[in-house]
C-alpha cells in the first residue's frame, strides 16, 4: 500500500496522535476508563497501522525485533519488581504502600502507574510481535 498517497500521509499524521492517546489511556487508567491493557493495544495499533501502510521492512527499521522481544519481557519484569519492592520494604508482595507519594492526593500513584506501564509495555510489544509474525507468515505463503 506504499503507493497510496492518502494512506501514507494520513497514517503518518495520525500515528503520533494514536501514540499519545495510548499513553493517555495507560496513565489515566486510575481516573477514568482504561489501563495498561487497553492502552498497550492502542499503542500497538499505531505501529501496526504503520506496518500495514509502509510494509514490514519499514516497521522493522523503526522497532527492531530485538526491541519488542526485550520490551515484552521488561514489562513483566517491571510488574514483578514493583511487587518485590513491597517485600524488600517489609510489606507483602505487590503491596504498594512503600511506593506512596507522601503529601500527594493520589496515594497509589507510583505503584499503580508503574504496574500499568508494565502491563502496557508487554501488551504493546506482544501485539506488535503477533502482527509481525502473522503478516510475515502471509508474505512467505505468497
Amino acid at each position, binding site marked *: 500500500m506504499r503507493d497510496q498517497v492518502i494512506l501514507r500521509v494520513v497514517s503518518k499524521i495520525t500515528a503520533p496522535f494514536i501514540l499519545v492517546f495510548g499513553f493517555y489511556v495507560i496513565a489515566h*487508567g*486510575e481516573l477514568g476508563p482504561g489501563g495498561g491493557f487497553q492502552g498497550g*493495544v492502542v499503542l500497538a495499533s499505531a505501529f501496526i497501522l504503520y506496518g500495514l501502510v509502509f510494509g514490514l521492512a519499514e516497521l522493522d527499521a523503526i522497532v527492531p525485533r530485538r526491541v519488542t*522481544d526485550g520490551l515484552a519481557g521488561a514489562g513483566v519484569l517491571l510488574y514483578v519488581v514493583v511487587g518485590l519492592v513491597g517485600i524488600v520494604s517489609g510489606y507483602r508482595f505487590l503491596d504498594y504502600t512503600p511506593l506512596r507519594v507522601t503529601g500527594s492526593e493520589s*496515594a497509589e500513584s507510583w505503584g499503580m502507574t508503574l504496574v500499568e506501564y508494565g502491563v502496557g509495555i508487554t501488551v504493546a510489544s506482544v501485539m506488535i510481535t503477533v502482527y509481525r509474525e502473522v503478516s*510475515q507468515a502471509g508474505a512467505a505463503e505468497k
Partner: protein
Amino acid sequence: MTIIEFLLLDVILLCLLIVTSVTIFVLHNLLAATMVLSLYSLVMSLVWLNLDAADVALTEAAVGAGIATVLLIGALVVVGAEERKHPLIHWPALVLIALTTAALVYGTFDLPPFGAASAPAQAHVAPEYISQSVPKLHSGDYGSAKNAEDQPTSDNFHGHVPNLVTSVIVNYCAYDTLFEVAVIFAAGVSLVLLLGRRVAGNGGEP
C-alpha cells in the same frame, strides 16, 4: 436517560447484534465476514457502554474491533478470502448446537432477573468494595487517614484510586493481573518460537 430509553437503546443494539451475527454466518466471503465481525465488536462495545461498563467498552473497541480484525485479515492473506464450498446443513453439528443452545437457555432460568438488586453480582462482595472505595472518592482524599470517620474498618485494597475497576484489577486482583500479563508474554514468546525466526532457504527450520 429514563429506564425506558435505556432499555429501548439496549433492545435496538441487541437486535443489531443478532443481525450482524446472522450476517457473519450467511456470508461466504471471509473478508466481508471479518468486516462484519469488526462491526459486531463495535456494536458490542456500545452495549457495554450502555451498561455503564466503560472499561470493558474500551477493551472491546480496541481489541475486538481493532487488533482482532487486523490479525484476521492477516490470516486471510494465508488462507484466501473465499470460504470452501460445503453442504449448507451439517446434521451432527446442527444437533450439537441445538443441544448446547437448549442447555444454555435452560441455564438462564436460574439467573436472577435483569437488573435485580438481590443478584449475587450486586449483593456478594461488590457492596464491600464500593463501601471501601467510594467514601474516599467523595472526600477527594485517597489513602491518607485524615478523615478517619469515612474510613471503613476493613481495607482489602491497601489504597484507592478514583476508578474502582482499576482499583480492583491492580490492587485487589494484583496477582491475577500479574499472571495475565505473564500469559500474554508467554503467548508472544511461543508465537516467536513457532512462527518466527525462519531463516530463508532452509525449509523453515529455525
